[in-house]
């Protein structure tokens, strides 16, 4: 047995190590490129031989008006946050009704949400492009918030329904029996129980908006509303002779590291949210 345990231990260590390397390499590589001085960019080494922060400095040079990065960063954060708030409010209403009330059409709503989750966004890009130009929504925050809302709602509704079904709603009545008003029963008992689920759904919706590229390049044309993924695709070098590789890598690190830290802090919640409703149980 001793021998077998030792071998198992070694095999598991290798398996785990492989997974960790697989996950980390691209991130470490981006950090490495972003820190390489331009002259060493082409040295093909995974680890930079000297470190420079010039790429990061160039991102923020010129302040909000001249920096190619600050305005898209503001757009990304603003659009994702606004969408998340609206999406979570609307999805909470719907999920509460679906999890707690009995009404015809419940299954239809769930099926419809599922259908929208499978819907190919490219199929709406042309009509939206045409409509948004007529409605003056093209290249505005609202022009992106509306499609993000539509495509994030199914995700939010499914996650929230799964969480809301786990809430022991009887507690609300128990609190009322104990003399709490309906409002107190809701805010003191139900809200704290529902908060983790709502927070989880909010993280997933935020990441969904933060990640979008197709709508971001199709429905925007300038820094007025272009988000980070779209801006990265249109990055140019300092001059027409320098490749923007270093700046792209630095910008990528700036938008990636905070999200990764956030994801790792709330990893249990995210795993629960991502798999919510995946299996009955």
């Amino acid at each position, binding site marked *: 047995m001793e021998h077998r345990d030792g071998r198992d231990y070694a095999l598991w260590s290798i398996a785990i190590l492989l997974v960790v390397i697989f996950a980390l390499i691209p991130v470490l590589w981006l950090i490495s490129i972003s820190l390489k001085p331009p002259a060493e960019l082409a040295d093909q080494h995974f680890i930079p031989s000297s470190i420079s922060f010039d790429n990061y400095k160039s991102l923020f040079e010129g302040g909000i008006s001249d920096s190619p990065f600050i305005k898209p960063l503001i757009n990304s954060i603003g659009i994702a946050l606004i969408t998340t708030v609206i999406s979570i409010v609307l999805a909470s209403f719907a999920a509460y009704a679906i999890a707690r009330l009995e009404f015809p059409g419940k299954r239809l709503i769930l099926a419809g949400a599922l259908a929208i989750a499978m819907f190919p966004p490219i199929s709406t890009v042309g009509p939206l492009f045409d409509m948004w130009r007529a409605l003056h929504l093209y290249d505005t925050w609202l022009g992106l918030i509306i499609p993000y809302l539509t495509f994030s709602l199914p995700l939010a509704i499914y996650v929230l329904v799964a969480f809301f079904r786990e809430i022991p709603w009887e507690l609300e009545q128990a609190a009322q029996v104990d003399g709490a008003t309906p409002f107190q029963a809701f805010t003191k008992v139900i809200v704290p129980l529902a908060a983790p689920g709502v927070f989880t759904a909010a993280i997933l919706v935020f990441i969904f908006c933060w990640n979008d*590229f197709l709508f971001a*390049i199709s429905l925007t044309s300038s820094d007025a509303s272009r988000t980070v993924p779209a801006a990265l695709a249109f990055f140019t070098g300092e001059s027409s002779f320098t490749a923007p590789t270093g700046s792209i890598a630095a910008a990528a690190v700036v938008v*990636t590291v905070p999200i990764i830290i956030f994801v790792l802090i709330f990893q249990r919640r995210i795993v629960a949210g991502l798999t919510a409703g995946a299996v009955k149980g």
Partner: protein
Amino acid sequence: MTVNAPANPNPPEAAPTKASSRTRSERKLAWMLCAPAVVAMLLVTAYPIAYAVVLSLQNVDLRFPEENSFAGLSNYATVLTSSLWWTDVFNTVFLMVTTVAIELVLGMAIALVMHRAIFGRGVVRTSVLIPYGIITVVAAFAWQFAFAPETGFVNNLPLISDEMDWFGGRFSSFAVIIMAEVWKTTPFMALLLLAGLVTIDDQLYEAARVDGASAWQRFTRITLPLMKPAILVALLFRTLDAFRVFDTIFIMTRGALETESVSILGYNQLISRLNLGLGSAVSVLIFICVFLIALLFVRGFGAKLDEGRPGG
């Protein structure tokens, strides 16, 4: 899909008329609560897809706005008889099948590691969530820089030719695109599979072990059959997601050297060439393809969507 919460907290002795009016008000409340979300979901799907159908039946080119006219099915004929469309369909299906197949194997392996590991489960879960948190465009750049002959470290690795021009050929470009896609989306697959894995009763494995089943037999005779529903749902969502592949190809090749996907074709027609008629015909055809794939999974393989969830 059962509802755990008491639907009607009224005691049974309540008068029937009162109960039904209560049911009615409950229905009304439910619909009022759902209405905003339903409207918001339909706003950017139902109406635009109908509008796309209308556009696809017309000659609409925003560069020549005065030449709009009814086109009938000629846009569809143009798309379906062009070799570009069929090349792109092949590319999309090829990428979809390869990435999803690799992901299923890798995802299952990672799920088993997370489920069975004697130690280090937390480390594995932490690391698989990293790709999930990264913007697809950023991941595409990371892999592109890694494989680019000028800047990348990949050609510097042993066993790989220093001269290898990954983005100089169609299938070598595909290899990098597949690598980036697999890296980005395997965690989602692994987590969905893990959720199915934890529902399997451990006693089944114990019983099989007592009966002398090998680890491989336990996997193929117990794990796989019991996980079929979870696997099908995970496959359905990932397949549809993979069919829409856009970001990675746009960043890496922009569709050059016959690496275009159908979504890139739609984007080029709609946004780059402003040919809304032709582009909308492509959009509608993509919509039909997605519908057929979903139908194949639900009807053909019996995927139970009740247990499904929208992709993250």
